[in-house]
């Protein structure tokens, strides 16, 4: 879940964050390494210091030890370790002692607790054994006891090859700890400052790098939304790197796409004009033919006004011509009418269409197969919730398709009607066994005034097509010359929200 959310983050956020994370990771790793290294070095330095002091005392202690010069030994310890009993806590040496081979104290920086001349009693038996072993060693030995807060140096004092004493020194590691802390704090501070600066820099750089990408993304969105109108502004490319190339490519594509859309718009306009021209020509043709006949009739009547037979003979012809013109005009206006929906208009029933078409094909030798699998069988009104307001558009569609099928079978045949619901889509099929449509005519089938037989106006299928389009539907044709055609109409169900519209 989180991962998906992370995936949906903007690159302008992810990239700076990634950079900050990398910078912080590297900086803090280095910082930690420096702190550890510093700590090790300080520790080694402190051990070295302890060993050095131990050796320094050991080197000069032999004489005073042999002479029992306790004061000289004490002064030596005090001087070499710069120990001040009055301010013992401020010294780095918090423990210093010279023992004789029998663990008797010869000198101590803490004489109140380890009086000279007495056995050094506070050590535990294992430590006592350790000191005895150390008496036999030649060199100073250091021991890190950071947990107890000190570094210990033990150096044997030898005179003429035999051990005469032992120097035990403990240097406080607490100051070291404090120094480590302050060093760590400094490193941490520096690292944080570096991270801050690096992050800001990284964020700025990545933002600068990502901004063209963001521009391209928003440009793409604009491109997809700016359907047929408007153009996408050019994006300024900063660099000549891959992103710059991408921006350039995008600019080129968006320019080409805008140009293409402009051309498409122009072509569509041209096509519309052409269609308009065709319609105008068709209308002119359709209207002109009856007009010529009617004008002839009128001329004849005018030439012989006294002939009472003429109006009787020609008026029906004129009326027929006018009806024909009205039919053409009505068909042209069918789309307009279909859009004028009103509550008073009552929708027809599928059965009405069935009855209508049945009477139309009487005596033509046509077998009619009616298969209505719509759940509400009889009346389209029943489906008004789903296909509300479109029934009146649907009935002419079915009527036109059936009529078209009848016309395609002058010698008779089989006409089939099937309707059913497929999911949210209503499907209507009208199939005839007529003459079929040659492939070259399939493209122009729904053009206005395209007709393949002399009797038609060529507006039937065009009107059907417009009505189906009006219902956001689709119309498909399958045809084989000589074997018949199949028209399939798919009407999508309106979503409940859109019903009111």
């Amino acid at each position, binding site marked *: 879940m989180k991962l998906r959310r992370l995936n949906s983050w903007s690159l302008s956020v992810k990239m700076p964050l990634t950079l900050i994370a990398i910078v912080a990771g590297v900086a803090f790793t280095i910082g930690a390494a420096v702190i550890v290294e510093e700590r090790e070095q300080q520790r080694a330095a402190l051990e070295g210091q302890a060993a050095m002091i131990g050796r320094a005392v050991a080197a000069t202690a032999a004489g005073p030890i042999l002479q029992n*010069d306790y004061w000289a030994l004490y002064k030596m310890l*005090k001087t070499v370790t710069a120990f001040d009993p009055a301010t013992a806590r401020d010294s780095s040496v918090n423990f210093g002692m010279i023992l004789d081979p029998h663990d008797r104290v010869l000198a101590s920086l803490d*004489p109140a607790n380890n009086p000279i001349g007495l056995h050094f009693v506070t050590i535990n038996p294992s430590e006592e054994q350790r000191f005895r072993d150390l008496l036999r060693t030649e060199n100073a030995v250091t021991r890190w006891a950071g947990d107890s807060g000190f570094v210990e140096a033990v150096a044997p004092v030898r005179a003429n090859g035999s051990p005469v004493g032992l120097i035990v020194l403990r240097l406080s590691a607490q100051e070291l700890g404090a120094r480590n802390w302050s060093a760590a704090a400094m490193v941490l501070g520096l690292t944080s400052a570096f991270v801050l600066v690096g992050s800001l820099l990284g964020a700025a750089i990545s933002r600068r790098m990502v901004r063209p990408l963001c521009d391209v993304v928003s440009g793409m969105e604009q491109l997809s939304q700016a359907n047929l109108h408007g153009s996408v502004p050019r994006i300024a490319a900063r660099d000549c790197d891959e992103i710059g190339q991408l921006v350039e490519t995008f600019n080129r594509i968006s320019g080409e796409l805008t140009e293409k859309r402009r051309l498409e718009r122009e072509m569509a306009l041209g096509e519309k004009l052409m269609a308009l021209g065709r319609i105008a020509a068709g209308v002119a043709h359709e209207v002109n033919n009856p007009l010529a006949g009617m004008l002839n009739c009128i001329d004849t009547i005018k030439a012989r006004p006294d002939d009472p037979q003429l109006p009787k003979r020609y008026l029906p012809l004129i009326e027929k011509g006018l009806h024909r013109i009205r039919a053409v005009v009505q068909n042209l206006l069918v789309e307009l009418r279909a859009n004028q929906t009103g509550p008073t208009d009552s929708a027809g029933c599928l059965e009405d269409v069935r009855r209508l078409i049945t009477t139309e094909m009487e005596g033509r030798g046509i077998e009619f197969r009616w298969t209505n699998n719509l759940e509400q069988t009889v009346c389209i009104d029943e489906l008004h919730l789903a296909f509300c307001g479109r029934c009146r558009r649907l009935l002419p569609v079915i009527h036109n398709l059936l009529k078209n099928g009848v016309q395609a079978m002058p010698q008779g045949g089989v006409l089939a009607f099937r309707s059913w619901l497929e999911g949210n889509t209503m499907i209507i099929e009208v199939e005839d066994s007529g003459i079929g449509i040659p492939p070259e005519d399939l493209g122009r089938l729904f053009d206005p005034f395209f007709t393949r037989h002399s009797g038609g106006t060529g507006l039937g299928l065009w009107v059907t097509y417009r009505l189906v389009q009006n219902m956001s539907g689709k119309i498909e044709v399958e045809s084989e010359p000589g074997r018949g055609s199949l028209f399939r109409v798919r009407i999508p169900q309106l979503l409940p929200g859109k019903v009111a519209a």
Partner: protein
Amino acid sequence: MFGHTTRRRFLLMSLAIIAAPVANAADDRPVRFGLTAVVVRDSLSFFERWADYLGRRVGRPVQFVQRRSYRDVMQLIETGDVDFAWICEYPYVQASPDVLELVATPIFQGVPLFRTYIIVNRDSPFATLEDLKGRVFAFSDPESNTGFLAPRDLVAKRGHSVDRFFRLTFFTYSHAETVEAVADRVADGGAVESYVWEHLRRTKSALADRTRIIERSELYGFAPIVMRRGIAPRLGTAMRNALIGMRKDKEGAKLLVDLSLDGFGVFPSSTYDSVRAIARRLNEEVSLQ
């Protein structure tokens, strides 16, 4: 007229004659002056000023020579390596009059006397010398009266065996360092010359205040300034006069303030009788053993 001139010439000549041996005596050879742990030598500049002062008074540069122990200084006197020395009263009463001669005795708190303080750490529970039985004790110098003989005498007077009374003893070879040893608790107790302790309390109170006095001895003649037999009597007189005259001039008085002394004077030999008594008792002890 003539007589006048002759007389003046004679005077000049006689001045020259008198001046000649003085000029010979005022050679560049420095007068060497031995110092012991009697004095607190914590300020080099003070001794430079004092040497300069004395040098101007005696007519020859004065050079102070410090040795760790009294014995070392006594040897320097015997071998003639030093002409004068500020030594302890015990070596003085012990030494043969053929070897050295008293020059002057310091005057401290109005008298040419001082005593021994038995001191312990300020924070220690010890109240009397008895409490220090079986403890660690710091002496200054085996040849010192106040730093060694007098405290031993105090112990002996209480009927203790001096050598067994303390668990452990050591020498610091300096009264000032005895104070330090007690202050640092290296020693539980210590014997210190009253003059040094009082001087330290005045000049280094941080150290002296970490100790406290639990016992005071009788008075002894103050550690004297002596000269070896055999040096020019005039030099000895000049040094004595220079020392005694310190309280009379401003510069000398200031040096005396720095020394925590009232002055130097010449006192009868009986001043050191109490020291001689201790020496006698000690010799009896030695002879008894």
